[in-house]
């Protein structure tokens, strides 16, 4: 049985590199994140709830804060079931919803100098290095569709969107990087 991602690892090398990151495990937890029982339940399996708009790495991937009642767990695609089961066990008996939504999304990696500028053409987000850096995840929109992104390092972002619009998101990222009007050296305002 072969599983495939939405664009099967499409890639474009322009002013920045845009590539589909392939299959990515994602598990959504909906719960009252302020409830002590939820905090404790996660703590028992060694997980801390990230702060508002934060994403933190774990042994198996990462945890991202999505909303006051929502976390996203990132892991290998074939491990999503395990993460789901682990969370189920840790939060048993509580009012929570845990769902493997790996296949509902597509993920991209964009990389290169000027990558902030490429995203700033599409997302109404302050991407100045003083305002946005590694460790933060932002749910926003890219042009006309919902999306979220976070930085891997200084010159690389991960972007997630709904699977059905993967082609659109690839196209607008590609276009934004192709027409990029990169400023000279100056690390200034975006």
């Amino acid at each position, binding site marked *: *049985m072969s599983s495939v991602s*939405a664009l099967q690892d499409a890639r474009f090398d322009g002013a920045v590199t845009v590539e589909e990151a392939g299959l990515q495990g994602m598990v959504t937890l909906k719960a009252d994140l302020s409830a002590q029982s939820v905090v404790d339940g996660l703590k028992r399996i060694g997980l801390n709830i990230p702060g508002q708009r934060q994403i933190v790495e774990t042994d198996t991937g990462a945890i991202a804060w999505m909303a006051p009642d929502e976390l996203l767990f990132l892991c290998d695609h074939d491990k999503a079931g395990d993460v789901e089961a682990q969370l189920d066990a840790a939060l048993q008996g509580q009012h929570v919803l845990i769902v493997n939504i790996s296949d509902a999304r597509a993920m991209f990696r964009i990389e290169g100098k000027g990558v902030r500028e490429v995203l700033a*053409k599409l997302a109404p987000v302050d991407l100045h290095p003083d305002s946005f850096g590694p460790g933060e995840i932002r749910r926003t929109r890219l042009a006309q569709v919902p999306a979220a992104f976070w930085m891997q390092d200084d010159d690389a972002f991960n972007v997630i969107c709904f699977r059905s*619009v993967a082609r*659109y998101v690839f196209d607008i990222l590609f276009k934004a990087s192709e027409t990029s009007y990169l400023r000279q050296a100056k690390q200034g305002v975006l």
Partner: protein
Amino acid sequence: MSTRLTNGGRLIDRRQPREFTFNGKRMTGFAGDTLASALLANGQTLMGRSFKYHRPRGVMASGAEEPNALFGIGTEGHFEPNQRATTQEIFEGMQAESQNHWPSLDFDVGAINSKVSRLLPAGFYYKTFMAPRPFWKHVFEPIIRRSAGLGKAPKARDADQYEHFYAFVDILIAGGGIAGLQAALMAGEAGARVLLVEQLPYWGGRTPVDGGEIDGMLAADWVKDAVQRLENMPNVEIRLRCMASGIYDHGYALAYERLTDHCADKSGSRHKLWRVRAKHIITATGAIERPLSFAGNDVPGVMLASAVRDYIADYGVSVGDRVVIVTTNDDAYRTAFAIHEAGLAVPVILDARTDQERPPEVGGFVTKARHMGIRVEMGKGIARVKGGKHVTGIEICDQAGEGHVLEEIACDAVAMSGGWSPVVHLWSHCGGKLLWDEEEAMFYPDETRPPISHDGKGFVTTAGSANGKLLIRAVMKDAQSAAKTVLEALGMDVAGGAAEAGPFNEWMPKPVWMMPQGAGKDLRQKMWLDFQNDVKVSDVQLAAQEGYESVEHTKRYTTLGMATDQGKLSNINGLATLANALNEEVPAVGTTTFRPPYTPISMGSIAGEARGDMFQPIRRTPIHEWHESQEAYMEPVGHWRRPYCYPKDGESHADAVKREVLATRESLGLLDASTLGKIIVKGPDAPRFMDMLYTNMMSSLKPGRCRYGLMCNENGFLMDDGVVARLDDETFLVHTTSGGAEHTHGHMEDWLQCEWWDWKVHTLNVTEAWAQIAVVGPNTRNLLEKLGSEIDLSAEALPFMGFAFGKLGGFDARVFRISFSGELSFEIAVPASQGRAFWDALHEAGAEFNATAYGTEALHIMRAEKGFIMIGDETDGTVIPQDLGLDWAISKKKDDYLGKRAQARSHMVDPNRWKLVGLETVDGSVLPDGSYAIGDGVNENGQRVTEGRVTSTYHSPTLNRGIAMGLVKHGPNRMGEVLRFNTTSGAEIQAEIVNPVFFDPEGEKQNV
């Protein structure tokens, strides 16, 4: 005539010639020229024809305020009309075309309008709406359409690309003159994130031309130094050719950057629209010189005084050998000096002010002019300009008189100045208020009433000439104090930057709204206020006479200020003229509303990346590529694209649909149903939440079972329908219509978050996590068993409306035994990543059963044959479930559900509501979609009485005849009755009212 001077021109590079064409004629300019300066350098002063009277027009200004010199630039996909020659820089190979002339610029037939101008007075357009009625359509409209207008709309598809850019800054500064530069320096030094934008291709605004000293340097040198310093600040971004076009609520602003309009190389984005969020905005937008209203002020060769010296200083271009100056202020004397220094003649300066009016401490400009040997006439003005296509002379009169001609003077250009108006547009866009300065005769920003942000504080501050500070020392002082105020409000330290500017004493201007002040009707009819829209002093006076008092009404009645220049030159003169006509003070009349954009911005820049394939996001299922590979005919369903049918070689759509339906009914059909909405609803309160969402009882549904349900909004109207599966006691899987998932999910969250916030329910839209395939037809079970299933698919183990999860042919499957076709049918969901492989596997294994992919039309036909309703066909937002005979799906036992109370309203229970029936044409043909059942007579509005309408209509391949569903008055009680349906051709079609279930009414086929 105009020509290039031997020397001078600080913006041009004489070593770099640029060839371009004007109306097909080859001309040469230099790098740095605008189209206007290059045309003038080539002796071309006639640049266009006016909007209404087709009067010959030359360039009047040197900047963004230009009303006359509008051109079509470029060709084909790069063509753009109405571009101002004063801001369009030339480049090698540029093609420019003049506008609004026929057959040629020099000889224009439409100029006849000018001769009959008394027939085209103010409000002419509106007056044509009045009687006689047929005249509008047959006489006025065709004539107006042909003769009025500016540029032509482009015919070719726009070949350029555009982009947006989101920027977040502490301070946005609009305008890169000395005030903007000074404010940027202070803000930059204080560490603020600054974006400084300037619409022109150079910094410093007017100052390098007008001169003066700042910080002990020549102003032009100070500007260079300031730009250098700003470029070295990492926290400051500065942009040329970038206009702050509008200011909106809460510090939002748009800036329009023209990236390639000045380049021969058009690659890359043409325009970039900066979408800026600023904590504070400083508008340092300068001021615009006002024309004077004298007879013939629109003749080519009459120009703003500031423009005349700009062309000399910036481009080394003289507008004429003999230039008469007419002014109400000292500033125009600078033009006289510039002309004189260029070695050309100023026959006379006509100064509307009198010596008696002069305060003793001023008057240095007059004296200087006289010392240079220039004749200065005080208290004088122009009675009339002579010349048609170009100025040949002027007649001098007393400003105080009625226009008696004292003397004629030959000249080939006139430089006029009626004073300066601060550019208050940006300040005003979001509600900043204005004050009237009686002495300077100008509106300026009222700093106590700025545009207000969310916190009740002003978010725009204005600086320099835009704030009414016209002299260099006042400008610098004002810029410093503005920057200081803003920085302090942002909690930043203000350091240094106290630039000192040299002193200048000037004699205040005199407000002159008409020249001469007692001009008679004959002269007033030749005094232009709005050059682009051909509005004259006499038009505004006529409007006042006809009862127009409000400046906004007068604007629309006369079209004053309604052209592409939005009245940059005409605004103040127009409303002062109105004020005089009404015997009011100028501030009592007030200004019209300033609206963004400051000057027109391209449609492309607004669209940004949203064009072509990216115009709108297209949603694709995991099987989308297969559909495309089969050359399926696709149709939009929400943002999805779904196959309508899969025509084989040469097959018509109708034939393809027929084949798909029959193959499915006879053996096996496969449908990509991935677009079906899937929402998980979970929690201890999920059962009662589901009972509120649906009209029928959902809490009684057993885990492992499915139930069809109807969802209404609070007004009782049917909103969505679908099958609900109960996964466990606390968890439901809601299936919505394709394209209805987001809306339904929003509806759920709305009620959960706003009304039932204490209910313990989580929802999650998982539509895209699953690929869903409907496997339909008598051979369905054979196919699935062949694939190898660990789920028992027998009728006993998995009965109709049951579901089971497990491995199917190696796939992680969720099998729902539901049917929208009346056939034995399984809807199987697999993870989206496995969707395509599963689809392929079904086709491979199904080949022996003639497995046939079918599209949405076959889906629709098969559901219609079974009498199943479709949201959006049988419903349109005004239909309740009871209209559709779905009373069986409305629980009588529940206390409440969304829509219950609304459905009890008198109109909803009216027995006369149209109700769902089946319709069979008597001759077997297909009823037209949307056709009405015709009754007898007419209603109170004189319309034909109707008693029903068609909601769905198809040719049924199964029954080989036309079938339809419709809503008919008293329909279910009229079985067997024949109705008449209308068609667009006028013929009528007869159809009998029948049961809407046309096929297998007992449901024997699906229950095997």
